[in-house]
């Protein structure tokens, strides 16, 4: 299967090793009826490849059910890939021993999707922040206290003494999310995977958290994978945007280029569907595809977007899966519209 990788917008020195490389990753879930009868397979992640370099931020956008969280969890080792490989600093995760996994886990911080489920209700802020250190063998009390102080300052949970002994329910939504970020940062990760970190928050708090993450990214030269269904927040964050549909990445574009001209018809639809506050919006209807995203148990043949696509090339799009085509240095899309003429 051809898989033409899209070049990065900025020039990478020849010898630089990506922090993370994901190769043809598949994560399928078996669905069983009554516990044992195999009823089908959900192809939650179905052939995803990309590289991420130190200090780079990418956004992954797509609607619910397209496989974003599965991608995050597979990278984190929560799900085992059905096929494909994940390389962290050039080491294949499947070659890691127990010690290697420990080290890997401490290099990747995770901000999970549900902020309420993320925090154990009966643990104090201090214990929540101590926990990952205990698991990773940082048992020196002084060292623990030092790190806690440092991350709490970084996420602005200050004055620290006011927060240390509080329980999650005593914190506001924004403070809870800052605590989740502090916990993700406490082992000094190189990469942060943030799964819809601001979706549940009010507009103002959302900005506060996004700016906080931006600051951490700069300060620690973090790699960040920012997962969101909200296209309007990505500009403030990432150098590249991947859009996902039907368990695949269907566009990889530099952020500026995508905001100027989204390429895949699905990304174009997301763009059109996003409303900026504007009184002019009253005057027109939106031209967005109707219908529903595909079933991942029984995905359509050919391009997974073809049943909803207004630009469909009959006989091609509904028959063959489009490979990733490179459009220019900054953009690529898995869509037959971008097939070069022979």
């Amino acid at each position, binding site marked *: 299967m051809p898989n033409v990788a899209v070049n990065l917008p900025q020039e990478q020195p020849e010898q630089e090793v990506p922090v993370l490389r994901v190769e043809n990753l598949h994560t399928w879930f078996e669905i069983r009826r009554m516990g044992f009868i195999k009823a089908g397979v959900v192809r939650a992640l179905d052939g995803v490849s990309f590289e991420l370099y130190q200090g780079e931020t990418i956004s992954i956008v797509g*609607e*619910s059910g397209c496989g974003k969280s599965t991608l995050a969890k597979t990278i984190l080792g929560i799900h085992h890939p059905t096929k494909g490989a994940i390389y962290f600093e050039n080491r294949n995760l499947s070659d890691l021993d127990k010690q290697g996994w420990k080290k890997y886990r401490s290099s990747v911080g995770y901000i999970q999707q549900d902020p309420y489920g993320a925090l154990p209700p009966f643990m104090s802020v201090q214990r929540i922040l101590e926990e990952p250190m205990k698991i990773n063998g940082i048992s020196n009390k002084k060292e623990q206290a030092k790190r806690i102080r440092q991350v709490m300052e970084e996420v602005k949970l200050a004055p620290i003494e006011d927060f240390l002994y509080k329980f999650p329910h005593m914190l*506001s939504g*924004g403070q809870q999310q800052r605590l989740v970020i502090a916990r993700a940062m406490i082992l000094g990760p190189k990469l942060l995977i943030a799964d819809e970190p601001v979706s549940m928050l*009010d*507009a*103002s*708090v*959302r*900005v*506060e958290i*996004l*700016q906080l993450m931006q600051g951490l990214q700069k300060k620690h030269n973090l790699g960040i994978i920012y997962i969101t*269904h*909200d*296209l*309007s*927040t990505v*500009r*403030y964050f990432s150098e590249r945007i991947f859009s996902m549909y039907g368990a695949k990445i269907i566009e990889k574009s530099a952020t500026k280029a995508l*905001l100027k001209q989204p390429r895949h018809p699905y990304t174009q*639809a*997301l*763009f*059109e*569907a*996003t*409303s*900026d*506050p*504007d*009184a002019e*919006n*009253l005057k027109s*209807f*939106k031209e*967005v*595809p*109707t219908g*529903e*995203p595909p079933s991942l148990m029984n995905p359509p043949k050919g391009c997974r977007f073809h049943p909803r696509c207004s630009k469909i090339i009959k006989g091609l799009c509904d028959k063959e899966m489009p490979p990733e085509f490179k459009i220019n240095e900054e953009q690529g899309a898995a869509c037959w519209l971008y097939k070069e003429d022979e």
Partner: protein
Amino acid sequence: MSKKILLDVKNLKLYFRTRSGSVQAVDDVSFRLEAGKTLAVVGESGCGKTSLAKAILRLLPRNISTYSGSIIFDGEDIMKYSDEKFRREIRWSNIAMVPQASMNSLNPVMRIEDQLIEPLLLHDRHMSKKKALDRVNEVFNIVGLPTDFLRRYPFELSGGMRQRATIAMALASNPKLVVLDEPSSALDLLTQANLMNVLKKIKHEFNTTFILITHDIGTASELADEIAVMYAGEMVEFSSADYFYTDAHHPYSRKLMASVPTLREDKELQFIPGQPPSLINPPQGCRYSARCEKRFEKCSMHPKTTELEHGAQVKCWLYDETGEVKHA
């Protein structure tokens, strides 16, 4: 052409009794809404948007400590109606509501059709089942659902379709006013955009008046003619959508707009440090004052509402009775 005011709310209050004190969820809210227009009510979660809707529809929990003011609907003060009369003549038949997350509260073991005709038959004893079915088919068409879905059960419909079904249910009685509480928040982007198209179509074709409650100002702008901003139980601004997004009056409204990310325009996002005050014993003065950059001496007193030109109103000391900006 004289404009008809469909809804005229004056000094509406809804307080809840709790163990720690009285929650002033809706505090002295006044506004007027023209027939055929859509009012979007925006503000952070907990500012009282849902409570305002409940106060208008008299859908009250048990722990009410204050419920007062007047609601003139179509020329009648419906606050004076008995509960029985309100239920018979106002709720659903004239003012319908699509509650928050209602698409998940359809009865799972009843066909959609039966759920839709039930209220029609209950409200009008003389209505035949055939006539009710005709109406239900009609509203299904209006919201853009295939009528054969009427025979299905809720679980057989996607989230977006179920949301349309609940809107169809609200429209079945041909109400003059429809209150939608966060109708699209739980939906995916494309589904949400399709739903806004449907609402827009209904608005144009039937001249329906809407109150749209949302925390998403971008989506609100698809439907809203007027914007009301709530903060800590009070309506701090009521303005025409024509200028609200670019030239809001209240300092809170301005900051709120500055925190909304935009896709098509690169702007510096801002946030408002701090949090809204508790609605139990809120501050005496302006409730926003602790977070307001424009705060001055007068703000320690409670600001009254100033009427500006074009029917706009703002609750802020920067504007005096003549509507002139003083300290901006």
